[in-house]
């Protein structure tokens, strides 16, 4: 479990890092190293070049913007868990962090790394999909943004070009007030067998103005179906509606069998978790609405 030899660079600026990335064909960005380093130690990954971006302080920001927050790619999980702006503006992110790995992992792993790694059973890609985050992506030549739903292509495959890296995330803060995330993992800190996250915004009449549902661990990318979500608009939220939604999603997803869960088991987990996520989201949406009225 020792990695093969590689060239190691420690750039001091983003421009330097992007320049290195454009110069080297088989280069990997090293951020928290929580997935890359084990893969190299098991010789499943053989990059010729590692570009260590841990010194790039320009990627460590958490800033308020008109729409929500701008978060640098190098922001670590523990900061997402603890930072007051995250807790206030995108509280579901802080909440989801408790479900990610263990404190040692959260002290190293980064938001940019988690999204770039694109594990469909990881929490942050699910939230990125649920809230339509935009990923800021840079190369030496240009910067562009990619909506989350266009970023994840398949298991561990993203829309990043070889010379591009994620430098940050823009996350809108709306729809966080009535949101909930829940998952089932066999042991604390394990990758979840399934994740469900939901957010609900209510009309004044307490019917659904908008609802979003995203799942992890049930497909090759985080699962979401905006057309189905649209069909929920105007309906009255109730346990029986959630059961219908759960039933629909159970049939709509197409998970695969693996060592730890059969496709049928994942379907049942997805159904159960979706109901739970929606019920949790509704409770919070009502609370938010009440607070809104009081204010």
């Amino acid at each position: 479990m020792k990695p093969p030899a590689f060239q190691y660079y420690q750039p001091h600026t983003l421009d330097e890092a992007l320049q290195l990335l454009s110069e080297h064909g088989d280069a990997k960005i090293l951020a928290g190293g929580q997935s890359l380093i084990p893969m190299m130690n098991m010789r499943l990954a053989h990059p010729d070049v590692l570009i260590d971006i841990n010194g790039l302080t320009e990627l460590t920001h958490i800033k308020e913007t008109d729409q929500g927050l701008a978060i640098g790619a190098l922001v670590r999980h523990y900061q997402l868990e603890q930072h007051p702006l995250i807790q206030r503006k995108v509280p579901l992110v802080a909440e989801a962090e408790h479900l990610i790995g263990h404190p040692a992992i959260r002290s190293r792993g980064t938001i940019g790394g988690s999204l770039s790694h694109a594990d469909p059973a990881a929490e942050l890609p699910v939230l990125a999909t649920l809230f339509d985050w935009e990923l800021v992506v840079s190369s030496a030549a240009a910067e562009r943004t990619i909506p989350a739903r266009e970023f994840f292509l398949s298991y561990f495959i993203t829309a990043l070009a070889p010379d591009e890296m994620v430098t940050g995330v823009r996350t809108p803060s709306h729809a966080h007030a009535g949101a909930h995330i829940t998952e089932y993992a066999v042991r604390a800190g394990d990758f979840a067998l399934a994740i469900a996250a939901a957010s609900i915004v209510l009309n004044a009449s307490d019917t659904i103005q908008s609802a979003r549902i995203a799942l992890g661990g049930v497909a090759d990318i985080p699962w979401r179906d905006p057309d189905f979500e649209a069909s929920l608009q105007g309906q009255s939220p109730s346990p029986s509606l959630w059961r219908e939604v759960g039933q629909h999603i159970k049939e709509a997803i197409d998970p695969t069998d693996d060592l730890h869960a059969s496709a049928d088991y994942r379907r049942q987990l997805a159904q159960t978790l979706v109901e739970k996520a929606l019920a949790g989201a509704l409770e919070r949406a009502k609370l938010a609405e009440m607070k809104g009225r009081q204010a």
Partner: protein
Amino acid sequence: MAIQERSWIGRPVPRTEDRALVQGLGQYVSDINFEGQWVMALVRSPHAHARIARINTEAAKKLPGVHAVITSQEWENLRRPLPGMAPIAPPALAHDRVYYVGEPVAAILADNRYVAEDAAELVEVHYEPLPALSNAEEAAQDQEILHPSLGTNVVDRVQYESGAGRGALAAADHVVTATLRLGRVSAQPMEPRGIAAHYDPQNQTLLVYHATQSVHRAQERIAEYLGMEKSQVRVIAPEVGGGFGVKNGTYPEEALVTYCAVHFQRPIKWAGDRFEEFLSTYQEREQIHHVELGINRDGTLVALVDTYYQDNGAYPGGGMIVSRTTARNLPGPYRIPHLAINGAAVLTNKVPQAPYRGAGRPQGHYIIERMLDRAAEELGMDRIEIRRKNLVRPDELPYRTGIPDAMYDSGDFPQAFQDLLEAIDLSAFRKRQAAARQDGIRLGLGVANYVEVSAGFGFEGVRLRLLEDGQVLLSTGATGQGQGHRTALAQIAADTLQLPLDRITVVEGDTDQIQKGIGTFGSRTMIMAGNAARVAGEGFIAKAKDWAARALEAHVDDIIFQDGRFSVQGVPSVSLDWAELARKIAPSGEMLIHEDYFGSGTPTYGFGSHGMIVRVDERTADIRIERYVIVHDGGTIVNPLLANGQVIGGTVQGLGSALYEEMIYSEDGQPLTTSFLDYRLPGAVESPDIEIHHRDYPAPSNPAGYKGVGEAGIIPSQAIVLSAVEDAFQDRGLKLDFAPVTPGRLFQALEEKGGFQ
């Protein structure tokens, strides 16, 4: 002050070894670095069964930093079977065929592990894959024989019959049948295996640092393999980070490292990594049992008939001990007048089996406890009642189980069970269970009783030496792996020698420090080395009296030893303590040393009862442990902190093999769970608080009354978890027949009962 109050025995003394260990100061094999050493990495087979057509090592040999690339194609000496494994043993390096994924095929010696692994990737092995045997019951049919020289895949059979055997089933009112299985598990000690060897050509001696449970057995194997005298080989086990049975046998790496150290006259080190721990360290538990239990209408057990197959992997390993111990544990603490047991250890294309904590005890108890649950259901009887009815009573002790030389000798099994039920408050639980079910919450109770058989063969020794400052050095061959021997053995010696604990230093695992030893496994150390410490202490005092007689100018018969001082009978005012005696001895240039051994062919029988309450989420198939209670007899307890640590550690490890851990192999023999991502050990969050109630019935078979405690926790774990989960779905008739019951497996079992309702 009464003697008893002053005794160190029974005191919860914190471990003296911990101060260094918790500071990270422990020296393990991977911390040992010799000047100029080469490190070893191995090319391991990626096939479960294949012929090796040819091996090309040229590219690997050319890599800078590589000193040698070794195959048994070139090195015929390495084709010899390894010592210490019968009736068939693997070579150090496979030469014509590989029999399991992970079997060593080539060894690289290089400057460091990085280069060695690079070189390993450059070795080209051309394999011709062969069909793999991955099912023990099928392999036992001998349609294809793995090792033609054996003539069969069944490497060992165990057969016991008592009473009328199978014939007794006809007389029973009911016969309950079941096929019950246990999955394969891997011990995964925190420290992987490792070995480092240094040859001194001038003195022709070999120094070996070895993560082993038995330095003397390792010394014997190494000397035999290298054709050296045992006296030329010194084996030291430095700190060993867990063993659990799998650091105790014949492995190719031991032969390769020591052979190369002598051949190249270079220090060689192999520090196995976690991946190798999954691919090459021996595994355990995998068995399938076809059971028939004869039972009368009133719940009385009549006969147990069990035919089972143990998937032993590609070589014997130590697996035969496991299948035999399984047979001996099948009756558990219950009265079964007629037995017919027929077990087969079967070779397949997987990693070999070796005893892992429990080593057949959990398997045997799993079968009888599962069958009692099935029988209770068949009779419409309570699971508790059927156990009460059949537990061996104290008035029946000593009780012969019907298996040769198995005789339970002490304690009160029904009382322990009763105490457990009271601790759990059975009737209150049943009420709570019924109420919870109304709210859609499923609670379940599991109970199991067990007997823990320990030691019963061989010997162990202790050597005591008085140092010049009056401290006593205690050496033993019972190499520890974290159990706390240095504390417990010092407590025993402190009592005998009437010394403060901190005046005794314990050295484990160095063949230069004591001539003979067997090792630490099977919960034997307190029984064997503990009694040896007492015996040696008495001999040591006798020799000390000789010296005291000379120093005090008296006849040795007049020397008395009291309160840690030697004096002449009737002259209490003139006396010597150990330090003063040491000063008197020093000028002579001689040393006060005594080495003594304790041997016993009679095992000890600890026993107890476990109870657990689980909460099961019907929709996610999640199993949470609400409560875990143990009534535990471990004989005379030397140190309750250490004993509790053993019981709790064993229980948690057992929960792993009951709920999470499973080495999964594909049908073609590929291991699929080869990292901690997929092979799930229980963590702190999964570990319940465990309540332990001690019942200390001294063992009648040894002077100190010690019994084994290392396996008590793990024995009932698989039985009790499955029992508790079944109880939570008693209304649905859930039947579980595979351990572990992972969430995925529980989901499947519930689906077969109609799924979530």
